[in-house]
Every structure is written in structure tokens, then in C-alpha cells.
């Protein structure tokens, strides 16, 4: 984990075109909370990871749908983009075959929304980590 001095040095290097902020963004997207963890913000990382993973897990447990990329329906494509925001949990879910059953009850529809919103929150979280890494947001 990086210290504050390390982060300050890294942020100075960013002006010269470092790839570190992009690494933070990518890690934050793939693994919820990882972007903040790399920056040494472990409390924030744990809280973000817990919130996003709980939303994803509850969504799947409720029988929510995991969208596919190639259905051709515009709303499904938007749902897919939201789901994809969750990063690895979505990819694992797709390979494991989760969320493929038909949504027949209201709570399963809630589950679908939990998964999509969890993915979008993960994107917000990853962008926040990127903003801290480039110095746009105060750490």
C-alpha cells in the first residue's frame, strides 16, 4: 500500500504522463474498492467494496437478471453497460451462469436493478479514485 509521500510523488509524476492514474481507474473498475486501496485509502476501499459487492450479491440472490451484450434491444444494451460496470463480479457471474433465469416476480426485478445500480456505483467509485490519483480531488 502506498504512503502519502509516495502518492504525492506519483501525482507529481503524473504531469509527465504516468500511467498510474489509468491503473487506478482500471483496478477500481475490475475489483470494487481496489482503486482506493492502491491509493492507501483502505477504509474508503472497504466501505466501497462492501456497498458494491453487497448490491451485486443481493441482486443475484434475489434472482436478478445479468444482461448479455448481444440481445439487440436498446434497453438491454443499457442494462449490460450498467452490469459491466461491476467489473470482475459481472464477468464471474456470466461465466458461472448466474442471473440467466426468467424474471417472474417483483423481487427478482428488484434484483436486476440492484445489479445494474451496483455496477454504476462501481464506475463512480473508480472515477473517484482516478480523480484522487491525478490530484483533481483532495485526498
Amino acid at each position, binding site marked *: 500500500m502506498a504512503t502519502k509521500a509516495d502518492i504525492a510523488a506519483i501525482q507529481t509524476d503524473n504531469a509527465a504522463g504516468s500511467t498510474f492514474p489509468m491503473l487506478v481507474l482500471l483496478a477500481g473498475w475490475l475489483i470494487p474498492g481496489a482503486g482506493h486501496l492502491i491509493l492507501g485509502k483502505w477504509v474508503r476501499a472497504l466501505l*466501497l467494496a462492501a*456497498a458494491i459487492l453487497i*448490491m451485486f450479491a443481493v441482486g443475484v440472490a434475489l434472482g436478478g437478471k445479468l444482461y448479455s451484450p448481444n440481445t439487440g434491444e436498446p434497453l438491454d444494451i443499457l442494462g449490460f453497460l450498467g452490469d459491466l460496470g461491476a467489473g470482475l463480479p459481472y464477468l464471474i457471474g456470466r461465466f458461472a451462469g448466474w442471473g440467466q433465469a426468467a424474471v417472474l416476480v*417483483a423481487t427478482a426485478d428488484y434484483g436486476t436493478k*440492484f445489479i445494474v*445500480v451496483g455496477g454504476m*456505483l462501481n464506475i*463512480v467509485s473508480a472515477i473517484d479514485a482516478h480523480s484522487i490519483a491525478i490530484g483533481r480531488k483532495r485526498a
Partner: protein
Amino acid sequence: MTITHFSAVILFAACIAVVFGITQRSEPKMMIRFGAYCFVLLVGVTIAASWAMWLVKR
């Protein structure tokens, strides 16, 4: 897994409030305040909308 509608609202609002609180504010104290504000707003609006729908139905 089954969950009541109200539990779903509470869980949904809590998770969103945590992420919004952390990402939209810089100071820890302000993060908590903004997170609490988001939580109250999300749950409050849902309850208000639920009562509004109940009134419309009657």
C-alpha cells in the same frame, strides 16, 4: 432469497448513500453528513411516493 419491499429500499438506499458520501465529498465529516442526507432523501422520497400511490389508488 426473499426480501420485503421495505428491506430492499433500506438496503438499496444504504449502499448508495455509502458510495455517494465517499465519492462526492472530500472531508470524512462531510462524507458522513452527505451520506446520511442521501439515505434520508432516498428512503423519504420512496415512502412519500408509496403513500401518493396509495392515495391515487383510493
